[in-house]
């Protein structure tokens, strides 16, 4: 089922008058069939059905704004090659 908000080109907060006006406009545009437009309008004018249409909008999850990581860690000068690989030579 197509999203009625998309068919009528109205936003989620549209009131009844806006929906009816959008229905007329959509019928003139003929982008969708008359039946699709009628069903979409009916759906948005019925609160229970409109709530079902609203369900299909993803829920916004409250998250923190992403920020670069602040750190006091600094690069240390080291060299693995400083290690004496033969320190434990067992074939002396």
């Amino acid at each position, binding site marked *: *089922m197509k999203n009625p908000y998309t068919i009528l080109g109205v936003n989620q907060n549209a009131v009844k008058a806006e929906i009816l006006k959008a229905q007329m406009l959509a019928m003139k545009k003929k982008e969708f069939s008359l039946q699709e437009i009628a069903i979409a309008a009916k759906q948005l004018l019925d609160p229970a059905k*409109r709530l079902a249409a609203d369900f299909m909008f993803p829920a916004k999850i409250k998250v923190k704004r992403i920020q670069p*990581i602040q750190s006091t860690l600094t690069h240390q000068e080291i060299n693995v090659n400083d290690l004496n690989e033969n320190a*434990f030579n067992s*074939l002396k």
Partner: protein
Amino acid sequence: MEIIIVLIIVAIVGYLIYHSLPNTKFEKAQNLFKTKNYVQAINILNVIFDKHVDAPAKLAECKFNLGNQASAKPEKVKFFNEVVEIRKRINKSESITKFESIEAKALFEIALIQYEETKGDIDKLNQNIKFIDTVNKKGSESDFSSLKKKHFYDLADSHFKKATDKEKSDKLSEAIQIYNTGKDYAEKSDNKTVKNNSVTRIAICQLKRNDKINLDDVSEIGYSDKSYQKELYYRYAIQLLRNKEYTPAEKVISSNLNFQSADIDKLSEILKAEKNNNAVTKIEEINTLIEQLQKKSLSTEELKVFYDSLDKTINEVKFIDIQVSEKISALKPTLFNRLLTQYISAEQFGNAISIIQKYPKFWESPELLKNLGICCYGYTSKGLLTERNYQTVISGWLTSVFSDRVILKSLDDTTWDDNYTFTLVEAIGSNYSQHKETPDNVNYDEISESNISIGATQKELLQQFETIIHKEIQDANLSKLVNDFYDKEKEALENIISVIEKDIFFATPHFAKQNGFNNEIIEELDNDYHNYSNEEALEAGVPYIKNSNSTVVYQYFYANDLIDKVKAAINNENSIAIKNLNTKENKQWIEKFDSISELVEDKLFNSISNKISEDDENEKLIPVMEECILFSSQNAKLKHQYSNYVANYCISKVNENEMDNFKALSLMKGAYLCSPNNPKIVKNFITLIRFNLMDILNDRTRKMNEIYTILDWVKKNNMSQTYKQNSNELSTARQEILQQLKKAGADISLFDEGTFSSILSGHSLNSQGLKIKKVLTYLQELGNEQEFSNALDQLRRRLRQQFNLDDDLPF
């Protein structure tokens, strides 16, 4: 005198001939051998070498013993070689056989002396192995085998030493090859020291060569020389460090290099510094990615890689700086949200579902559960359901829509609904007013134009989804799978919601099992059963079972499953399976639950009825029905069903001459036992008694004894009231037989058991007569003649009393 001289000459000649015989000489040689006079024995044996079959072997034995007596090795070898040389002189095959075991002993001694000369020299050891492999070993096989093993042991030692020399001169590949050869010899000779040390040294050589190695599950290292172990683990830790495998490096240091040493301290310091530098690098990388994310230049794929890498980075950084690792952890929800939003807006619903499901306890967030529902809907509407994914998608959708909290969440994002209130009174996600915390505009009041039903919204969503799965799945098999699964999941969810009062998270069985909280739901259902003895709660819990054996829900399922197993056995006509299920313990499980025990008989009755409707003359069903009667504690209906089935079957088969009378009687005995007062059963049973007695009478059966056994059982307290009322048939048959006998001129008094006339007549019956008499007696005893004669006796007594007649007057 001349005679005497002749005799003496003959005796001397005889003596000389006797002593020149081979046997005599061999005996002499043997005596010399016993006294260890080998040289003289050898002289004699050489003379009779070809004349006595045992001479070559004895000669070899003498030389072998001389070899053993010799003190110097060259002298020993000389004698043993002489033993071996003897073979060339032997012509007789019997002599060879006896000689070979001595030869093998001599050869073994030679091999042993040669082995002692090797002194670890690899070439000499190999040469002697070749010698051992080629010579005759008859009778000395185990000695040779042990000796060969000693060679392998020495070869292992020698190769190990040779390999260490190569390693010292940095010829590492050659060293590895020789260590491996030594290890092979060590395995053949149980030289554990060389085996374990070789494994360790090979690993050291590989590390020296900078080969990437893995020491997991190399048990030999732990048993090798301690100094080798130290060197190996030190070098290994350095390799891990170079490869930035910090955690394994740390583990090696703490487990295998836990001793005081300046070199180990330095190694640990460098490890720590490396980890620090790695953390710094990671943070730089993360910050670069964050910058790209803020500039929106990060693709969805790159974002996914970034998100997936976070856990590993968090783990690596937390040992360096816990606060930094927490900051990185804090990025996860934000990145997750970005990724999910991108997936949903790009309609990549499969990827979206996948990351939601990996998010810890995602179902506890109404937002995530709602987004899961949206993705499941979108995925289905795009026609992406397959046999592999439909369960996850459908269970996700249903769980999401049935959650009242998820629907309430939709109210947060809009303003059009500000003039309305919403009621949960008919919401499908709860059966009681159980949601304690609801928004201000949500209530449990009646539905009206301004008080909107949440339930209606949920039903609208379900209906939209059902339209898709009913109409838009092209593959018929998949469509059936999906729709059946949807119905089952939905029904199961509705069932638990209708039972559970507590405000818990409700999910479909698949969802609950997949996410590991099915047992929490079962626990609630168990509680409901304990509180209200509500077996509906147990029934509702059955689809949620998965490793839940200790719960009452499981016991309920088990009891039901027993009935299902019996039903399956009925369907498969397997009476033994039912018998095996009929245990005291199993019956106790069934009896524990009223809703199950009350329906056992009906369920089995219906299953049997279905089988009968398929084939109403199936003899295999008879033992199945008998077992069902025993299985069900309430069985009146089953008995009735069984008796009628058996009676109909027997009547049909006997009438069509497809069954003999005895078999029919045997089967009908069971039917009569179950329904002793069912006139139809009883009459047919009595008729079969008559048929069987007539078969005996007319010599038409070989089962006489078996028939009488059944009839005796009937006579012995098994004549029901209905039986007694219908047994005239047998009395009539008896009378007819007596009439025929009378017509044929027989003295019928002889057939009357115990009558005065039969005793007085002085005649006796032949075997045929005795058989007839027995049949007549059974007809009399099984028929109601007895009762009839008793009634006559009573009438006679009453008349005698009335007319004062003598007792012995005939009536």
